[in-house]
């Protein structure tokens, strides 16, 4: 027997990365701004997205959403009340979305053409670990953190927070009752991701939504 070393030097998730690059090219040529929303379960991604979709619609923008969950189409039904096209992705136990799932659900999405959209939101499965490795072809990765989760979440999950392009603090209307220290939370987020844009929002009261919508419009026109 002889031993041979074969250098491979290839990404483990190369297939996903290639599919994601293909999606990104499609999104760019269609002129749609795609955002990947990531957070723990219960941060309020769906409520935040619901409000975002509603306000974008009022402002005349065309937005749609793909929403990932292990099971049920509850979130899709909730989001559909905004009037925007919404499609559920059930992963059946898989803890993250991948580019193949996104591509498959874009194909054959009745009544939705990428070229007819200004924004596409992809609500990832609630998880602060695994989604960080899977590129979905998005241009902006948004990490959400609620005031009920504690200010040190970014320090506990640096892999994901460091990979984000924008951060949204949700349920800011509960900051007082929860004893949430905003300055500390903002400092922790920036410790992990220096220079990142941070929005303090409440889907309930609408606080901070204008800044967020302005940011979306700016990013879209870039």
């Amino acid at each position, binding site marked *: *027997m*002889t*031993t*041979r*070393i*074969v*250098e*491979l*030097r*290839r*990404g*483990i*998730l*190369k*297939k996903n990365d290639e599919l994601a690059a293909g999606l990104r090219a499609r999104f760019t040529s269609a002129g749609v701004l795609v955002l990947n929303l990531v957070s723990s379960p219960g941060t309020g991604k769906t409520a935040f997205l619901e409000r975002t979709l509603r306000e974008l619609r009022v402002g005349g923008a065309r937005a749609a959403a793909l929403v990932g969950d292990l099971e049920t189409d509850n979130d899709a039904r909730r989001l559909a009340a905004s009037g925007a096209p919404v499609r559920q992705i059930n992963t059946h136990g*898989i*803890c*993250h979305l991948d580019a193949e799932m996104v591509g498959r659900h874009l194909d054959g999405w009745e009544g939705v053409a990428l070229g007819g959209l200004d924004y596409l939101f992809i609500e990832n499965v609630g998880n602060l*670990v*695994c989604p*960080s*490795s899977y590129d979905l072809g998005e241009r902006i990765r948004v990490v959400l953190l609620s005031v009920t989760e504690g200010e040190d979440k970014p*320090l506990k999950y*640096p*892999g*994901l927070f*460091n*990979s984000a392009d924008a951060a949204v603090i949700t349920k800011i209307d509960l900051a007082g009752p929860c004893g949430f220290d905003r300055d500390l939370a903002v400092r922790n987020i*920036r*410790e*992990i*991701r*220096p*220079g990142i844009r941070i929005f303090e929002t409440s889907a309930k009261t609408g606080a901070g939504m204008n800044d967020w919508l302005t940011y979306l419009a700016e990013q879209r026109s870039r």
Partner: protein
Amino acid sequence: MHELSIAASIVEAVSESASAYPGARVKEVRLRVGALASVVEDSLQFCWELATEGTPLKGSALVINKLPVIVHCEACRVDAEVEGVQSFRCPRCGEPAADLRQGRELEIESIELEEPEPGEPGIATTAQAEERI
């Protein structure tokens, strides 16, 4: 807990590459994993056994080379290792450093194959294997 998916992706990629060397057995798979890759080493090792079961990689060792986070500091004009993944600052001047140069890697570096000697019965020779590449 996506280590099983990761392990399955490694098995797929290595099987593909190893098929160019008929008769060879995969002894070892070496990875480069950055500190920010969100992969738990113990969990990946545990999943490795499951993922390789019933494949030509069964019994192979998984060697994980962990890579620290390296940032580029604009002010100091150096690439430097951060003191920990809780703080992305230049270790020299202490300024925040967002420019990541290493730490997200999730790669298969190399594989070690055990091949039969030329002429051993029933198995293709190294020379034949090389012709196929």
